[in-house]
């Protein structure tokens, strides 16, 4: 199996069916696959469940603003020092978004389980002392640890129907190099049933280091600058003015709609 080189719109149209669960990579405002996310928003494809990295920003806030996200599984949606996520916040406060409350540890382990065919996975101790499991009882359940007989908190394997991550570059065979800290994007990529990788460029031979082989990838989207306004490490930093422009625009539904309209 070799990945197909597709435009963002083609990849979205061919691989992301409405209602699917979609895993979107990038951590905070670094390496978000915005070209593909914006194509999802332009195509108005409803996302059954949006699965994110342990911390996500505009890559989640934008499709939420577009009203396309039914459920979200994410431990953090925000913009760090720039502020809260305006669309996520508004939807949550209005009760218009089904938030599958979760935490960084259990979510990372749930992706590990999804990548490895493990049916479920126990959480490290701590989360049972929080209000997180009570807010998401379908996800945080308990079972007996057969080694000490005590009930432990466990979460199910998470396997997005499609995962989308951004990497630095692909070669002509479709192998890709991260060119950056992979964060949890390796796990998200391995956990996805299908994988779309957005890259900045195509090269004859990829940079040594963190990479993914072609056979794991369904489609490669070549999108120079396609992580903006988030950072593409080594190429451009996060565009804080651009992120602020979103935060400002999305303070109102009308502002968000105008921003989204301008994407087309």
């Amino acid at each position, binding site marked *: 199996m070799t990945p197909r080189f597709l435009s963002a719109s083609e990849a979205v149209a061919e691989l992301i069916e409405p209602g699917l669960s979609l895993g979107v990579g990038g951590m905070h405002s*670094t390496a978000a696959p915005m070209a593909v996310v914006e194509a999802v928003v332009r195509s108005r494809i409803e996302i059954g469940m949006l699965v994110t990295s342990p911390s996500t920003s505009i890559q989640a806030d934008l499709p939420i603003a577009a009203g396309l996200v039914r459920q979200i599984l994410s431990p953090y949606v925000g913009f760090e020092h720039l502020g809260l996520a305006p669309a996520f916040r508004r939807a*949550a406060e*209005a009760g218009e978004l089904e938030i599958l409350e*979760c935490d*960084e540890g259990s979510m990372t382990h749930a992706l590990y389980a999804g990548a490895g065919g493990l049916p479920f996975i126990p959480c490290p*101790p701590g989360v049972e002392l929080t*209000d*997180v499991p009570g807010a998401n009882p379908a996800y945080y359940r308990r079972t007996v640890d057969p080694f000490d007989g005590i009930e432990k908190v466990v979460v199910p394997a998470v396997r997005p129907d499609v995962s989308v991550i951004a990497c630095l570059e692909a070669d002509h065979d479709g192998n890709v190099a991260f060119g950056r800290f992979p964060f949890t994007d390796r796990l998200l990529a391995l956990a996805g049933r299908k994988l779309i990788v957005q890259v900045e460029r195509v090269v004859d031979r990829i940079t040594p280091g963190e990479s993914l082989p072609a056979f794991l990838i369904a489609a490669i989207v070549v999108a120079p600058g396609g992580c903006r306004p988030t950072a593409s490490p080594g190429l451009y*930093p996060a565009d804080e003015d651009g992120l602020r422009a979103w935060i400002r625009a999305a303070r109102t539904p009308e502002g968000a709609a105008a921003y989204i309209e301008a994407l087309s």
Partner: protein
Amino acid sequence: MSDYSPTEMLVVAMSRAFRDGEVIVMGAVPAVPLAACRLAKALHAPGLTYIVGGSGTVNPTAFPSSSCDPSLATGVVALPLTDVVLLEGRGDILDVFCAGGLQIDAHGNCNLTAVGDWARPDLRGPGSVGLPFLPATRRSVIYTATHNPKTLVERVDFVSGPGHPREAGDRRPYQQEGPSLVVTPMANLGFDPESHRMRLQSVHPGHTEPEVRDATGFDLGSGYPVAATTPPSDRELNLLREIMA
């Protein structure tokens, strides 16, 4: 003595709480703990290790606003984020978790998730992220830039990061110290060893004890000594300004 800002006092107070040889971990918006770690390492804790969550970079000398900023890649060593997540659950390797929240309560619980009713919150925060790992770290240092009765509350509306047990019988998975310090722009606060309730430790210069009590949304108790925070020294301030430049 130079003039200094409330943030500078906050960072200096935090840096003094880090002890030589400790391993510190911080998450999103790392500026304050990152500056405090670098200051501590330069002054009294040369063997300090600090890990910037997100990127997993160990002892970076960059000073970015975001925990995942590409500039952090210049560190000598970085742990993959997935390894940081593993170590955060191990319970025997990390000494200090630097935490914060929309609300911090009398027992040191942190809420970064939702103010008001979770299902229809008055204020929705980003989420719990790594705060449930707090009980797996030897101790936590909590900080906030907003010392007021909305932030410092009797009981958080949502426990994202567990503090000290509210009841004597509450079990903790590891034998940890729990929250050891809360640093604000007005004061340092600790916890009563019996009741595990927050109490005043020292008041920063320019503030008074009654002012701090008024700005706190719960009873800080009484009958214990309250010190005056030593103001930042010139050495601390000069170094800090180099770090944050």
